[in-house]
């Protein structure tokens, strides 16, 4: 019994982060498997979990301005080999933790120490970390691993969240997609938000924001399309010449989704910095201005009129052009068929001579 979707929570208190010039440096393509900025698109929709984004070729940092930052489900952030998304994910985690939310992290791709690097101790103490990197198949049988494999880990995470605003970060959806069937993963993600909504108290309490990181190069169009359709906000990271950009697509239930592109960078202390536009020097391939399609441009005949032609057209008298009172008289329904009037308007060639009406006849 879903208690209905929670209302989007305004985030007026999210601080604007300063960004440093870091970020946007292209990592070498052959490098690490998953550097990518994950954009967290928290969209306003509360009850829908957002799926992580994909990796695009570029890193993009995607800060969302507080007024439009959605609460609730997160979006997928896509990153790519050149543009790393994990820093963005960490920046958004930091933002959420500073905002007082519970943060649960499922770490699959990097070790816990590496993930926690960069957070200061206060934030680190608030993060609840589920480690699937060290021993995903539970060979060591220490008993602290989550049962059921990755799917069981997702379900267990959901059960352990307390009611209240929660942010769940999945370090890599790609890792999960490679090990789970896509349909099962989609169902598990949807179930997370629903179960959280069930356990939450009221609409304000059920704020679940799921952030996911997806490496776009690893998957075909099928899984990425399926996850995108589930997501509320999708952040695709990119960039040009060292400056990271994030292309945000925010789906709202009944409106056209706004698409916007933000330029950002992540500071060393994992703060976000929004920048206005692309840096001036990095415009190697500006988008060509799409020319307006002119419908009459490819015809074999000429539809345009020159000035002289237009004047000649306007001054032409039409054969059945009546005076305006005659038009009005004709348009107005007459008193009836009993009275009929004859309207005669002399033409230019008529030569009326009252004395001799037949004078023009050549008899």
């Amino acid at each position, binding site marked *: *019994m*879903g208690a*209905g*979707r929670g209302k989007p929570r305004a985030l007026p208190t999210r601080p604007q982060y300063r960004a440093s010039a870091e970020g946007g440096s292209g990592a070498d393509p052959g490098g690490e498997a998953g550097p990518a900025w994950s954009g967290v698109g928290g969209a306003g929709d509360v009850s829908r979990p957002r799926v992580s984004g994909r990796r695009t070729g570029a890193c993009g940092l995607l800060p969302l301005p507080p007024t439009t930052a959605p609460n609730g489900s997160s979006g997928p952030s896509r990153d790519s080999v050149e543009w790393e998304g994990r820093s963005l994910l960490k920046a958004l985690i930091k933002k959420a933790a500073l905002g007082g939310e519970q943060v649960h992290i499922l770490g699959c791709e990097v070790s816990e120490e590496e993930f926690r690097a960069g957070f200061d101790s206060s934030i680190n103490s608030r993060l609840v970390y589920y480690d699937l990197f060290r021993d995903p198949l539970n060979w060591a049988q220490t008993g602290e691993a989550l049962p059921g494999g990755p799917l069981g880990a997702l379900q267990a995470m959901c059960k352990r969240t307390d009611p209240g605003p929660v942010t769940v970060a999945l370090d890599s959806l790609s890792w999960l997609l490679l090990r789970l*069937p*896509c*349909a*099962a*993963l*989609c*169902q598990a993600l*949807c*179930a997370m938000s*629903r179960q959280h909504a069930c356990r939450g108290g009221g609409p304000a309490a059920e704020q679940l924001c799921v952030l996911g990181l997806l490496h776009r190069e690893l998957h*075909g*169009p*099928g*899984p990425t*399309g*399926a996850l995108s*359709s*589930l997501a509320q906000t999708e952040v695709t990271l990119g960039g040009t010449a060292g400056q990271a950009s994030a292309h945000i*697509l925010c*789906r709202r*239930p*009944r*409106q*056209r*989704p706004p*698409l916007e592109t933000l330029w950002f960078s992540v500071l060393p202390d994992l703060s976000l910095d929004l920048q206005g536009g692309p840096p001036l020097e990095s415009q190697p391939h500006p988008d060509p201005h*799409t020319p*307006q*399609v*002119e*419908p009459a441009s490819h015809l074999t005949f000429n539809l345009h009129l020159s000035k002289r032609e237009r004047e000649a057209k306007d001054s032409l008298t*039409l054969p059945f*052009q009546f005076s305006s009172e005659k*038009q009005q008289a*004709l*348009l107005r329904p007459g008193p009836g068929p009993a009275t009929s009037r004859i309207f005669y308007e002399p033409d230019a060639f008529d030569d009326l001579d009252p004395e001799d009406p037949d004078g023009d006849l050549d008899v």
Partner: protein
Amino acid sequence: MAAAATCGTGAGSTGSMVAAGGKNNVTSFQRRGPRASGSDSSYSRLVSIAGTRPSVRNGQLLVSTGLPALDQLLGGGLAVGTVLLIEEDKYNIYSSLLFKYFLAEGIINGHTLLVASAKEDPADILQELPAPLLDDNVKKDFDEDACNHKTAESNIKMKIAWRYQLLPKMEAGPVSSSRFGHYYDASKKMPQELIEASKWHGFFSPEKSSSTLNIEPCSLTHGYIKLLQFIQNIIYEEGFDGSNPQKKQKNILRIGIQNLGSPLWGDDICCTENGNSHSLTKFLYVLRGLLRTSLSACMITMPTHLIQNKAIISRVTNLSDTVVGLESFIGSERETNPLYKDYHGLIHIRQIPRLNNLIYDVSDVKDLAFKLKKKLFTIEKRVE
């Protein structure tokens, strides 16, 4: 008819004509059989179910899809016993709107609803249905729409066709007091009392299919099996297939299935190319069999843009009766095309069924575009 009692001599004969002598009837022929004016209305010859009408072409019983413009394109409406498949647009905005119109039309006409979804709870879907437009408000809305649209052009007086100045400029407005096809206001929600007065059944896939069973390929996924069983139960229990002779008035069952084929149903045709490609087609085949033997009509929305294997799309099209595709301009390059600047997307009528007929009932114009004005959803033929 009044003289039937006295025509006892002819009652034993098998002929349908009874001679009546000396009566003041105009004709001497009497129709044998149940009286049309009898009190037992279940034997009336004309079965008139609320919200339906026979097609003008072949008498097929039709229901409205909730959008009179779409009804007109489909040849009058959606035939009872058939499936209408809507291919969703990329962001699922307009297809969900059409889905809601279909359900709202069912509530207004008093039909029984069956809502199946894997994404949203059916109760939530029903809360968000659009409100019907009342007759006096509709004319006002159409007038002001027409005024807004035509103010720029009203100053042009026609020079040649001046006799047409007096013709009304607005498009055909809604017919007041129409029993078939209503208009809805997308900005308002349907009043709660109408929803509560209606009869509906909901199927929410994550609740019904509890476990993820391991199924062998080429068989139906678990969610589909459960949905088919649910539909079959409702049809049988409520007598839509004539199994329990209904003493009350016959009614139509409107089935709405949302996002069929998406991964949330457990089907992976949207994720991979080589998945279980027969599950969805089998589902549609069985569903069509259920619908043909009952008084029901079904609307399915399917995210065909996500299906990876294009052969499945053509199979799905063949297995459905009417297929309508929506293509929205959001994010595509057509958004900036001046031809499309007034519209929000294109509608493609991909298939129209040939029911009890040798010819199709296709409209001659294939260029159709739709736009969602602030309250109404209109479909227009694109005129160059």
